[in-house]
């Protein structure tokens, strides 16, 4: 063997120190330590957590074969129309697909992005949610159905917002930073946003983490009565909670007489949040949804109260599986932004979004073509709905909402234990069962 060959072989055998995996001391962990050592504070970042959690991909749907008949994918009907808030409201929210657009504020997003999202809802017949900081008139003018949030900060909020709403959503928390308040960094509080939100220009806004007029569950019951008075009982009132103690929170919400509950899992996105909060607070969407369904069934109100789930919903399969687990609808945020061009760069907080989505910079805002973006979001929702329908029909359903948990099996022991859905190839569950025996 030539001496050169021996040298090369030896080099290949000896691992280079820099390539050795260092367990918890990943590149990101080292970088975080260096950042904290330099500035002495926690890091703020956009988009929510990049961590991988058990999710809907860990479930499979059982197709119909001999035990039941499939529905023709292309020639037979499968209903997708979704009715939310039937419990008390005289005018429930009726949308054509169970995919809603979740609350993203004008401020976190550009005006152009908000208008594009609103137009998309009009194309496919679904709802948009205004998010924190008031209701943009152009959003209301362009949307098919408008959900208006009631946030702890009440920034930009008034009776006019309520009058413009097809449904209200009282926010207790969001999945990306449960227990924390909204963060809107100074880079996004331009003169226009400051005027719209009635804020001083150029501040770093750390808004209110609790409602100034709801200090506990008993108050919430009274507040709900007040809101019924304000709306004259016409439109549905939902309550959005970040996934944590879901079982207990859902039961309290039911007693407060809400029409629907939105469960926001920890995979949910945000414009800005402390990294430590996004990565460590809350529980994933999948087990949260199961707990919420269990709680509603335990109280005997599953059919009365609408259950909406959000956080990491990315395709029609997720929608189908969420419905099978008990959701009446899902809400999407990050997915809709990606459809407009977002690359999930995790830098929303900077306000320098080159795609004109998460920015207030007049030059960058011009990069978003409203009509094109609206069409892309509408296409995305349409395609997701198609995917969900394909799965439902293959499972033998003529209504998307006829999907049920018996149609599911878990791919992993982890998902099985979390959801109570039997492990694939068996009828066994590990842990608490979810309606199976």
């Amino acid at each position, binding site marked *: 063997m030539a001496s050169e060959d021996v040298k090369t072989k030896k080099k290949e055998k000896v691992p280079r120190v820099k390539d050795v995996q260092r367990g918890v001391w990943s590149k990101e962990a080292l970088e975080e330590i260096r950042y904290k050592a330099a500035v002495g504070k926690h890091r703020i970042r956009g988009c929510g957590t990049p961590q991988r959690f058990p999710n809907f991909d860990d479930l499979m749907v059982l197709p119909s074969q001999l035990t039941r008949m499939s529905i023709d994918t292309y020639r037979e009907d499968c209903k997708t129309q979704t009715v939310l808030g039937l419990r008390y409201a005289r005018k429930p929210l009726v949308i054509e697909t169970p995919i809603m657009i979740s609350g993203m504020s004008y401020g976190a997003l550009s005006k152009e992005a908000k208008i594009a999202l609103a137009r998309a809802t009009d194309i496919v017949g679904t709802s948009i949610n205004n998010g924190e900081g008031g209701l943009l008139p152009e959003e209301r003018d362009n949307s098919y159905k408008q959900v208006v949030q009631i946030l*702890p*900060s*009440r*920034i930009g*909020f*008034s*009776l006019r917002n*309520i009058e413009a709403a097809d449904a209200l959503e009282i926010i207790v928390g969001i999945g990306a930073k449960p227990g924390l308040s909204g963060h809107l960094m*100074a880079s996004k509080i331009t003169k226009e946003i400051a005027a719209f939100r*009635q*804020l*001083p220009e*150029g*501040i*770093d*806004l*750390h*808004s*209110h983490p609790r*409602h*100034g*007029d709801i*200090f506990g569950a008993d*108050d919430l019951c*009274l*507040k709900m*009565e*007040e809101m*019924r*008075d*304000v709306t004259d009982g016409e439109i549905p009132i939902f309550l959005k909670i970040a996934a944590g103690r879901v079982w207990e929170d859902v039961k309290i919400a039911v007693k407060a007489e809400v029409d629907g509950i939105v469960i926001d899992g920890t995979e949910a996105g945000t414009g800005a949040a402390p990294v430590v909060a996004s990565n460590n607070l809350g529980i994933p969407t999948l087990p949260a949804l199961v707990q919420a369904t269990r709680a509603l069934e335990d109280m005997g109100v599953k059919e009365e109260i609408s259950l909406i789930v959000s956080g990491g919903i990315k395709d029609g399969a997720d929608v189908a599986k969420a419905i099978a687990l008990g959701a009446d609808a899902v809400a999407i945020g990050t997915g809709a932004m990606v459809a407009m061009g977002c690359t999930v760069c995790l830098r929303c907080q900077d306000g320098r979004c080159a795609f004109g989505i998460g920015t207030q910079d007049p030059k960058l805002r011009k990069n978003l073509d409203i009509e094109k973006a609206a069409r892309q979001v509408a296409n995305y929702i349409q395609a997701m709905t198609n995917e969900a329908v394909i799965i439902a029909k293959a499972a033998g359903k003529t209504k998307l909402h006829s999907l049920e948990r018996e149609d599911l099996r878990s791919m992993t022991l982890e998902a099985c234990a979390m959801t109570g859905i039997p492990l694939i190839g068996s009828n066994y569950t590990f842990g608490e069962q979810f309606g199976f025996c």
Partner: protein
Amino acid sequence: MVRLDIQGMGSREVNRKIKELIRTEKDIEVNNTHSIHNFATALKGDGKITLNGSTGFYTGGFLEGPTIVIKGNTGWYTGDNMSAGEIIVEMNTGSNAGPSMVGGTIVVRGNSGSRCGWGMKNGNLIVCGNVGRWTGKMTLGGRIVVLGEVGEGVGESMYDGVIHVLDPAVEDKLGGNVRVVSIEDGEKKALEALFNKYGIEQDVTAFRSIVPRVYGRHDYIIFNPTHKQRVDA
């Protein structure tokens, strides 16, 4: 004047009746209030409603125009989210008076609990007696006036707006991100006008003002060790 006896009625029934009445009657007297919650929710227009008794939580929430006079006490969250009109409480309120109000005026002749003016955006909140802690927490605008003593943490993290106080010990009770300054001439005139309107006898020159310490970015202390360092930094 028209009199309304609400004995045994629920808040929704009461509110419906009042909304009907105020379309034609400009002076309504309400009896047997029995600390009813959610009184006069989202009431619009003009006119005066006088309650001979106390009310519970959320009195005058989302009020938009009329004047409500409560000849008793009110519970928590008086005037929540109100945008116009007046709420005059002849006695005391519970905590969180005027949360997130965007306009109008609340006058409390007695004392008010903690967190009055929480997240207030605009309007006037006048307390003739004492207030509890965290008055004016995270206000975004408007004017709070306290004639008595203030509790701890007053003005915590105000973004905008002003709190006028007489309490001589206010410096010891300030919240974060605020400072005490002299009252300006324009503010004195505005206070005089308010005091004249609501029959409050008080010299306005004695007031001082609490305003945001830095108009803009706030400093927050999340970790605050209290030990003594061995070596001075």
